[in-house]
């Protein structure tokens, strides 16, 4: 996809996840919005996985450690064709598989997550298996920045570099807010780069809401031979909706009808800007 196509895709995902949250009156709005661009680039540009290849032993794996931001994952998986988008109308309903955290009952989901600090250890095991089997598939996980306080991450970080897992890439959705307050106030994890570097990781930082930059960076994986890769993706919580950006209450805030309308209108306007730019550049050519 071109960067413009990816940008439009991100807008579409934001609209769909907000609709999902609005319909079922629950969801992790801010963190889903902050990580849209990361999942967009991963699934549309990087991961070698599809509904047809999902049972292949050599598929790339994406394990979402910040499981609570399930809405973005489900919207992207539906777009990839893992299940019909209409399935999401059952979100959180009695006996639906589409619930507030990823489960393997939903096609395309690799692991049941939701308890924080679990994704990275599972990825380490999966990446070790790839090395043992001499396969070159890659293993990705998305971590929340607040989640970094979970100790199991650091056990896994140590093991990842011990085993030289350059087939493993962890991405931190560094939106700098967690449920109570800022990360800095709740539990300061800075400096993340130096911490992971000292654990033996190759670390890169990127604007995690810039699909073009994410694409270029992820295409350069692994960053260093024999080292696991960490992407610190600087993002905005609530990205794309003016009144949600960097506002704590949208961690799991559900928009009212008026807020939902406004959010959708803002996204439509953003889409119009991109389309106008496309037209203008065509005219200029």
């Amino acid at each position, binding site marked *: 996809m071109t960067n413009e196509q990816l940008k439009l895709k991100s807008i579409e995902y934001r609209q769909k996840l907000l609709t999902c949250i609005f319909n079922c009156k629950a969801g992790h709005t801010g963190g889903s919005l902050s990580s849209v661009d990361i999942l967009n680039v991963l699934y549309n540009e990087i991961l070698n996985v599809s509904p047809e290849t999902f049972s292949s*032993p050599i598929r790339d794996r994406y394990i979402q450690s910040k499981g609570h931001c399930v809405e973005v994952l489900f919207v992207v998986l539906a777009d990839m064709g893992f299940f019909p988008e209409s399935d999401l109308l059952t979100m959180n309903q009695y006996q639906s598989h589409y619930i507030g955290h990823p*489960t*393997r009952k939903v096609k395309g989901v*690799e*692991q*049941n*997550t*939701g*308890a924080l*600090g*679990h994704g*990275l*250890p*599972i*990825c*380490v*095991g*999966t*990446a*070790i*298996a*790839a090395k*043992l*089997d001499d396969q070159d598939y890659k293993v990705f996980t998305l971590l929340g920045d607040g989640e970094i306080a979970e*100790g*199991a991450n650091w*056990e*896994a970080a*140590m*093991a990842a570099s*011990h085993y030289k897992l350059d087939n493993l890439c962890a991405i931190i959705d560094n939106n700098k807010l967690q449920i109570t307050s800022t990360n800095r106030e709740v539990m300061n994890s800075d400096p993340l780069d130096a911490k992971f570097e000292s654990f033996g990781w190759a670390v890169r930082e990127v604007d995690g809401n810039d699909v073009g930059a994410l694409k270029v960076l992820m295409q350069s994986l692994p960053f260093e031979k024999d080292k696991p890769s960490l992407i610190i993706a600087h993002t905005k919580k609530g990205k794309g909706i003016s009144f949600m950006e960097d506002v704590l209450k949208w961690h799991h805030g559900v928009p009212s009808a008026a807020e939902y309308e406004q959010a959708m209108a803002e996204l439509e306007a953003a889409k119009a800007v991109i389309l106008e730019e496309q037209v203008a550049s065509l005219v200029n050519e």
Partner: protein
Amino acid sequence: MTQHIPAVNGKAYKANLEVFAATLERLAASDKQIIAVTSDSRGSGKLAPYGKKYPKQIVEVGIAEQNLVGVAAGLASTGKKVFAVSPACFLTARALEQIKADVAYSNNPVNVIGISAGVSYGALGSTHHSLHDYAALRAINNIIVVAPADNYETEKAIELAAESPYPVYLRFGKKAMDFLKEDNSDGFEFGKGRIIAQGKDITFIATGEAVLPAVKAAKKLASEKNINATVISMHTIKPLDTDLIKRVAANGAPIITAEEHSVYGGLGEACASYLLQNGIHNPFKIVAIPDEYTVTGSQVEIMDHYGISEEGLFNEALKILGA
């Protein structure tokens, strides 16, 4: 079969833990999908020779039990036949959430191997005892909970675990275990208790290293009191063999359960729950570790203290029979 188990120091039997290691080594020779994951526990797990022989079939994670189970789950998700080996006390407490979420809930069929279980570590104290593991794991969906009693049951359990499509928890102790019986033609499968002895007067239902004391108590009751006991090795605590319990309870004789575990949430309460809910009201007693600051001492001393012993079970039987 038992002929695979090499004799040690001239004895025909050894610790179940050693049988575990020997069996894994045997299976790993022909099955390259078998992987042991250890948390600086290959020595305590008797897996050092295995590790030397099959360096590509062992993954060391250091002293990090949460990562041990997470890594094991990741390996198992790719089709590896994974044995995550660590002292039961740490494995089923510190890494309980990983067992619950990464193994059981996600159905990554890891074999969670709790070594030196129960009070095997004796005088090392309560940090090193696992008296909660049956209770904790019984309350978690999608994991089979097994405590093999002797070398035969251990070997069979490992063979079955290697091929199990579901997560399995196996726990072993450290001390040498005599064979429960000479003829094992009745076989071994998860969820099916084994009748070790048959008698009409009283029934012992025991698990793991508490079975042997029950067998000895039964022999003593027969020879000294002419009391004939049934002894069941209820190696699988979940799913519980309720058909067998129903069958042995049918004659109305008293039932005594025995386990190296807290009185709360283990085999005894599992049996009690089944019996009561099915209107079966035989006289009933749970012999286990009471809810108190555990007495200090060796494994044998602790088990003797709480009556999980030949003498203790003999006396409980006389008491419940009013003999």
